[in-house]
């Protein structure tokens, strides 16, 4: 009995030592339960996470913000999709953000976020993300966490090899996945081969305001351009795009696009093309694409339809484009932090192919070509190959880096993350994911300066990971500690929509800049009122404008009469609060739109077209204060031919 007690004391002492030792490195593979995984992801109440993670929402069209290592979701930022939570895409001010050459498109498929960079390091000013379906690129301000700009990409279809940032945010790059007739025309689908084109768009980013403008589009052969990454450091000035369907098939692609043993990585020297364009090169062609910009001072977006785009024929710019043969329909295209290695993950292969940037330059200079495709030189595979990772896994997709000379690659079919060493190509560790991982993310892991503490695996299949919620489930993610030799699975959490890629950064990079309120005295909205006493209602024909204010806990005015059936009633609501986290909401009974959530100092507008005579209430949708339930009002709606004059009041005055 005594012996047992002594053992118990000894074990308790050991536990004490093990769990509190500073900076310990967990060796071995003993599993999360026997280690201190719980402690590593535990963020105490009131404490903040160490990293931000921005996960694309996939078919939600939005971007979700998480804290790492806790996996707590902090916010969903509406980008391409209407979002009733805030009224984004429903308010009159934000409807223009959804404008495209196809009209109002209130949804997209958001794939690959990337944070702006300076000198190859993430700088935390903006995050960009692509809309895959109706080709668009969005820019989100990381002080307000609001979508500020969306530019449509013409001559593109399936905007997938996007949105990746060059190392001084000179360009955000958008390659087309589907090749199409350029310009679009009525023609037989079977005539695809040699007639369709694939465009790679280089969109310049204004260094001060971040405003985007398509600098040029490179018109490439009609392959599928899958993913891309910029060169870094020594390879800065180049951009690398994986291709598949170099067969140029147009039907049953799963078979017909997998015929060639090798497809290509297209290496594009954008600096050479930039110089060519700056010297007057390229051909301006008619096009139609929307450019939507949200102005923070007016709290309003405007949409401009652009009419032309500059195109570049790669054959006219010597030294601009080369093809690097890469086995088995490569998917991910990743460049290590030094810029030396270009990694192509052949998704139908077991191996990873790594090209050497130095060897590529030498092969170009030595003209080590293996023929050409549509006039573009193909470099000899063995001349540029740096090495092959014999992983033993199946279905490699994407690679990120820890800045310590290691790379981490996901394998979809074998459901695992494999850690391997750059240069020696040896596999160091492998850990299962649950299940069928797509992208992975290390904060800063595609930049010159990764923060190699955690990797997050973003899975495609969830099945039994969480409490069942019927046939449709959120996707699963796992976070691993990668600070030691071996990866350690720490935690598992669901993610919203379908996260494809993600981007992360240290919390301190954004925390101090995050905006708390909008200043009312800086509000330049044309329908804003600066004082409740300026509240008024005006009529112009059947258009009625209500200049309304909110402050705890009432609307001014809250009684309105003289509205008629058939009117178009615009509620312009200015939130007069100047206090952190005190929004007011607005909704009107029977209104064919969402509520609005108006942040302090902001003005938003809601359109209501009353169809029925009566006295109709509106109310604040946000539990704003202790007197929130009192925050309501009435609108009297009279018949269309009524002669009741417009009037408005608060407390009878």
């Amino acid at each position: 009995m005594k012996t047992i007690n002594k053992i118990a004391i000894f074990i308790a002492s050991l536990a004490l030592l093990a769990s509190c030792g500073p900076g310990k490195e967990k060796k071995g593979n003993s599993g999360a339960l026997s280690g201190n995984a719980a402690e590593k992801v535990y963020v105490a109440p009131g404490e903040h996470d160490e990293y931000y993670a921005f996960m694309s929402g996939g078919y939600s069209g939005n971007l979700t913000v998480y804290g790492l290592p806790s996996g707590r979701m902090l916010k969903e930022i509406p980008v391409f999709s209407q979002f009733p939570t805030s009224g984004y895409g429903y308010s009159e001010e934000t409807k223009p953000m959804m404008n495209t050459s196809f009209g109002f498109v209130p949804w997209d498929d958001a794939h690959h976020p990337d944070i702006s960079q300076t000198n190859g390091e993430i700088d935390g000013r903006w995050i960009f993300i692509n809309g895959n379906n109706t080709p668009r690129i969005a820019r989100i301000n990381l002080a307000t966490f609001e979508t500020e700009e969306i530019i449509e990409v013409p001559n593109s279809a399936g905007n997938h090899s996007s949105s990746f940032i060059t190392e001084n945010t000179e360009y955000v790059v958008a390659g087309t996945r589907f090749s199409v007739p350029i310009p679009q025309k009525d023609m037989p689908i079977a005539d695809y081969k040699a007639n369709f084109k694939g465009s790679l768009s280089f969109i310049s980013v204004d260094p001060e305001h971040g405003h985007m403008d398509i600098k040029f589009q490179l018109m490439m052969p009609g392959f599928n351009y899958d993913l891309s990454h910029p060169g870094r450091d020594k390879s800065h000035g180049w951009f690398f795009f994986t291709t598949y369907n170099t067969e140029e098939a147009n039907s049953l692609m799963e078979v017909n696009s997998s015929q060639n043993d090798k497809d290509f990585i297209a290496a594009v020297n954008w600096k050479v093309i930039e110089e060519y364009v700056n010297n007057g090169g390229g051909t301006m062609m008619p096009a139609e694409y929307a450019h939507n910009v949200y102005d923070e001072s007016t709290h309003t977006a405007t949409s401009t339809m652009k009419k032309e785009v500059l195109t570049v024929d790669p054959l006219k710019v010597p030294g601009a484009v080369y093809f690097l043969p890469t086995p088995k329909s490569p998917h991910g295209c990743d460049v290590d932090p030094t810029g030396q290695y270009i990694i192509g993950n052949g998704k139908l292969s077991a191996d990873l192919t790594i090209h050497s940037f130095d060897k590529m330059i030498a092969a170009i200079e030595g003209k080590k070509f293996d023929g050409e495709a549509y006039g573009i030189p193909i470099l000899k595979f063995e001349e540029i190959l740096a090495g092959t990772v014999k992983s033993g896994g199946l279905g490699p997709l994407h690679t990120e880096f820890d800045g310590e000379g290691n790379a981490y690659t996901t394998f979809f079919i074998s459901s695992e993350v494999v850690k391997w060493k750059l240069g020696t190509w040896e596999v160091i560790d492998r850990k299962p994911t649950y299940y069928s991982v797509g992208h992975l993310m290390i904060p800063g892991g595609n930049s010159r300066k990764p923060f190699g503490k955690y990797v997050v695996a973003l899975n495609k299949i969830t099945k039994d990971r969480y409490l069942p919620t019927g046939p449709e489930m959120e996707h699963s993610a796992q976070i691993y500690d990668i600070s030691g030799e071996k990866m350690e699975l720490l935690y598992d959490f669901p993610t919203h929509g379908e996260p494809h890629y993600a981007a992360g950064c240290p919390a301190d990079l954004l925390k101090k800049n995050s905006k708390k309120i909008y200043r009312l005295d800086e509000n330049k909205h044309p329908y804003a009122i600066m004082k409740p006493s300026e509240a008024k209602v005006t009529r112009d024909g059947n258009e009625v404008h209500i200049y309304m204010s909110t402050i705890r806990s009432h609307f001014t005015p809250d009684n309105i009469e003289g509205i008629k059936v058939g009117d178009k009633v615009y509620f312009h609501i200015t939130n007069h609060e100047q206090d952190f986290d005190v929004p007011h909401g607005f909704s009107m009974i029977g209104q064919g739109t969402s509520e609005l959530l108006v942040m302090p100092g902001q003005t938003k507008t809601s359109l209501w077209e009353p169809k029925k005579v009566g006295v109709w209430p509106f109310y604040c949708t946000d539990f704003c204060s202790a007197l929130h339930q009192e925050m309501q009002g009435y609108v009297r709606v009279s018949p269309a031919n009524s002669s009741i004059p417009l009037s408005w009041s608060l407390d009878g005055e």
Partner: protein
Amino acid sequence: MKSNINSKLTIIFLATLFFISCGNENAGTTDSVSDNGIVETHSKGQADVVDETSDPNILQVAIGSKDHSTLVAAVQAAGIEHVLTNVGPLTVFAPNNAAFDALPEGTVDNLLKPENKADLANVLTMHAAPGSFDLDALKKEARKGRKIYTATGDYFEVKVEGDDVFVGGAKILGTIPTSNGIIHVVESILSKSEN
């Protein structure tokens, strides 16, 4: 059996050590171990939120006012700082130092004693009305014969005499809008009206 108990105590002791040593590693928390070995986390409140962007709230304005040092000391003694930073909205009738000085000798000192914390909190919250009543709104209350009710459920009469406004018999000396409500500086403690 005796030694068994001792061993259990030792294990508990070791476990406690574990909590203490790990707690200390977490900067910014205020964990402590009470006599019974249970770890207590003293949660922070809204008064601790760091925010230099928003307009100042009621508590911040009061702290910044030299004429309200007694009131602020009383608020802190009563532990109601978080109430005055809450989203409210609140209209606070804030007696200045002279108002407290005018009370019978020993009243304030007595209220500030720890055992009278509840009474003190009651006196203070009697000076806070739910809602935002600026001076015009108070005049309207007087005109319409409506009484102001405060957080304690007490009702106070509003009177206008010439340019002066009185609430619960206390004259308003000045009005300061804040981010979470309105402060009216009053020259005396409010006195309840009937009903």
